[in-house]
């Protein structure tokens, strides 16, 4: 359980890559998107792939997880993103490599009560 206001909030980018393009997509994500995200205050926590081999004929799924400390920091990052929409260029360029994507926001289950006590 974290201190109130300092709970770890996770961003999960779940990307389903076009068949055979997951490695290329991840490379592009790390070279183009990750520096912008770090510059906005996000900390890279995990880069996961399933299945754990680079498929040639089918889709890999990538899970890239970022974190910030506390809801106020979440808003600070969001305001930075909205003030500088250049990150949208990444998603437009990456789109041909993506079948579908979803961004989720998560917390540790032990932090739910604290996060809701605002």
């Amino acid at each position, binding site marked *: 359980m974290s201190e109130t206001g300092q709970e770890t909030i996770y961003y999960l980018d779940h990307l389903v890559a076009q068949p055979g393009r997951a490695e290329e997509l991840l490379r592009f994500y790390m070279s183009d998107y990750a520096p912008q995200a770090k510059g906005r205050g996000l900390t890279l926590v995990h880069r996961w792939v399933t299945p754990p081999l680079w498929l040639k004929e089918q889709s890999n799924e990538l899970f890239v997880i970022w974190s910030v400390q506390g*809801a106020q920091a979440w808003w600070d990052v*969001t305001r930075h993103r909205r003030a500088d929409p250049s990150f949208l260029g990444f998603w437009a360029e990456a789109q041909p490599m993506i079948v*579908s*994507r*979803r*961004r989720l926001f998560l917390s540790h289950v032990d932090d739910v009560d604290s996060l*809701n006590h*605002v």
Partner: protein
Amino acid sequence: MYRITKVLSLSEGTDAAALIHDLAATAGNSRQVLGSALAPTLPEGRATGDYIWRLHFANEAGARVWAAEDGLEANAIMNNPARVRQVDSVGYAGGRAGSKETLARGVYRLLLLSLDEAASTADVAQFEYETYEMGLYIPSIIQWRISRVSEDSGTAPWTHIWEQEYRDLDGLLKTYMLHPHHWGWINRWYDPECAEHIVHNVCQSFCLFDNSAF
């Protein structure tokens, strides 16, 4: 019940007191207007505009009669660039609302929304439900309503208005903003980085009220 809600940005040098007097008279002179509240926006946060004007009528026909009579004078005032720089306006019959109690006074906040016209019916319905649901989860929202608008004008093609009443400003600027339903759930409809993104423009403003809008 039919409502017209406007966010007014005044031109530099405008005599605000005279403007408010003149606009209020166009409502006070009309039998069609059942209620009119014109209040200055609060300086905290990022409120748009200088005044919020809320009018309500028995029905849409009453609003149309007002628009064709005293409303003409109101429009002439608001269309005078020497007095008013910008008006964002919506008319709506009322949407899905919730209430925990009736407040005699507090903070009224509105958010005008412009949803992607290509958004699916299912997505719009889900967005509307989740917006309504905020009032169920966020304790500081005392009364709330999400409505589709039937007429609009201003800086974007407004499709919805999301209204809330709070006991105080902390309820809006702290509890509402920091609650996980906001940043961890419904925000995905607003975030261009999220696949669910359908809200393209917003206009938010808030003011004190001593006459509930609900």
